């Protein structure tokens, strides 16, 4: 492959990290959803590019899933849920945006540091792709941890999972990638449906997980 090809892949991976940061930055629900849609689209592009590079047509399926399911279906569904639940107020953040961003940067640094000792045989680009993927994963995780609201946690989880798909596609010729991405889509569907169910069963007046934790097996 030519340097340009890898550069593009590299660029896309980098873009995902950037978008992850944008995700962390959002403090409005709808904006968050839109940014996530972008996140998914970038993933779709990068996966598609990998499919083209690796001459692996099956990866296009993954790309397609990313584009349609995560880029369109889920955001729309979540949009409706948000409206239905009437939680399109500000996202209450457990840790305020600023420190979160700072910590995010630290995480990116960390993910690069841990990737450094990889032997050169891997080729610099794969290594840095990995670093980016790891960064996306960690940022997604960070989002799950710092957001006190189920919908944004779902989004955090999904961005985390995007990072995984990025890594998986980055790994050349890795089998089962499609199956895995499908599996994850199922997982996310569970997630969303779960939130939805909780709502319409009116067991919990809000999907804020703190409320979800009200009913303890053994009340302290």
């Amino acid at each position, binding site marked *: 492959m030519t340097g340009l090809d890898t550069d593009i892949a590299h660029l896309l991976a980098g873009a995902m990290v950037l978008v992850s940061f944008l995700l962390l930055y959002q403090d409005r629900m709808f904006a968050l959803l839109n940014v996530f849609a972008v996140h998914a689209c970038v993933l779709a592009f990068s996966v598609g590019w990998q499919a083209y590079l690796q001459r692996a047509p099956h990866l296009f399926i993954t790309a397609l899933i990313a584009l349609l399911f995560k880029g369109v279906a889920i955001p729309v569904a979540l949009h409706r849920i948000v409206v239905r639940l009437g939680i399109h107020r500000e996202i209450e953040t457990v840790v305020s945006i600023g420190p979160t961003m700072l910590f995010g940067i630290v995480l990116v640094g960390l993910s690069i540091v841990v990737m450094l000792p990889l032997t050169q045989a891997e080729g610099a680009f794969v290594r840095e792709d990995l670093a980016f993927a790891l960064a996306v994963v960690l940022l997604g995780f960070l989002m799950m941890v710092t957001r006190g609201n189920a919908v944004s946690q779902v989004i955090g*989880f999904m961005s985390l999972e995007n990072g995984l798909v990025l890594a998986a596609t980055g790994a050349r010729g890795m089998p089962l990638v499609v199956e895995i991405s499908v599996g994850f889509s199922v997982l996310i569907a569970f997630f969303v449906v779960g939130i939805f169910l*909780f709502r319409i069963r009116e067991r919990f007046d809000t999907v804020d997980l703190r409320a979800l934790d009200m009913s303890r097996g053994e009340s302290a």
Partner: protein
Amino acid sequence: MSLAPGMAALIGLLGAPALGALVLVATRNYRLGAALNVSFSAVTLLSAAMLYWYRPEPTLYLLVDDVNTVFLIVGALVGLSTSAFSAGYIAHELQARRLRPRDLRFYHALYQLLMFAMNVALVSNNIGLMWVAIEVATLTTVVMVGIYRTNAALEAAWKYFILGSVGIALALFGTILVYLAAEEHLGQGTAAMAWSRIAAHSASFDPALLNLSFIFLLLGYGTKVGLVPVHAWLPDAHAEGPTPISAVLSGLLLNVALFALLRFKLIMAGNSAVIAPGPMMVSMGLLSLGFAGFMIFRRRDIKRMFAYSSIEHMGIITMAFGLGGPLANFAGLLHMAMHSLTKSSIFFGVGYISQLEGTQQIADIRGLTQSAPLLGWLLVVGVIAIAGLPPFGVFTSEFLLVTSTFSRIPWLAMLLGLGLIVAFSAMMLRLHGLAFGATDQRFALPAYRLAPMALQLALVAAAGIYLPGPVVTWFRHVASLLG
């Protein structure tokens, strides 16, 4: 053409539960469903037992060796007795209106699906496939935990689901990294995901990648094993789900996840340049042991208490395997098998207790040896067995583990002993409240329904007194394989 017996066994092992799942979705009558459930599990056990003698050829996807045969047989055994127990259990749940017949269809189907997933995870030679199987197993158990649809149950399921999926995600990342490490030596494609190949060639892999991957795998699969600090889902899931599921979780699923961890530990062990996985496993094991021991003291819910005891024992086993060496591995293996049998049988007892007493609150239960003598004494025996007193198998394994550890790393053995004592005293504290004390209640429980519990405990006692030569040699061989 005639089918090799090994292949036939494998087909039975995977086919029976798969078929069972399909059939059971279709069966409306829950009694028939329960019966079918038992029979399918029996077939699974038979085929698992066959695997002890006949092995199929290893492929890139499936591999049956001495190691996973142990897990398969133990798992199938527990699966069978649990299905037998649940047959009696769910009937009562129906009368109590806690479940509807429609739920039971799902319940039975999911039960078989779970068995299927776990068997696949155990026999899969492909780390990706193994990952998928474990994910499926997790999701099924999530649904089963939430089956009562009470607040607590849903909350437990939700917690389990979220933490579980995160764990799954981490495990996947680790898997990808392992693939990356393998891919440059074994070429792209499935070959680089076949565990047997990877383990064989891991010596030449990039140590940095392996290190990184093991972290993610340890946390990812460790979540399923229930190791502290990623254990949080386990107690609630055990406490709120139907008791048979608690039994299966403690008796099987934890082992399966542990098995996955072991496979990757072996990959790590193959490479000298990596940081040793042992210390990490040992420290996490010790942490789990001590933490669970202290947590048992203040438990008010009987099932949650035994769930913590599962964490404790998983910690012990992880520690044993982390220590490595023929003796410790042998002890860990034995402990794993004994814990599955004992803990599941304890959960059988606990299920009946909570049904009879109508509560899971320890404070409301007392004098079981008087109100339901057989059940009460069986519980006492079970707790004594799980607490590691003779003449039960757990004592044998703990004897080996403690003595071997003390001779190698005394202070570690001291910590181990401390944790054991803490957990022991906590269990005993609770047991005295449960089993003894004056009560005017009298429960009538037909003895045959206690058969699964009694049989498993008898098995554990027998293993503690006399372990047949072939089994010993087999376990020793496995222990040597585990390095």
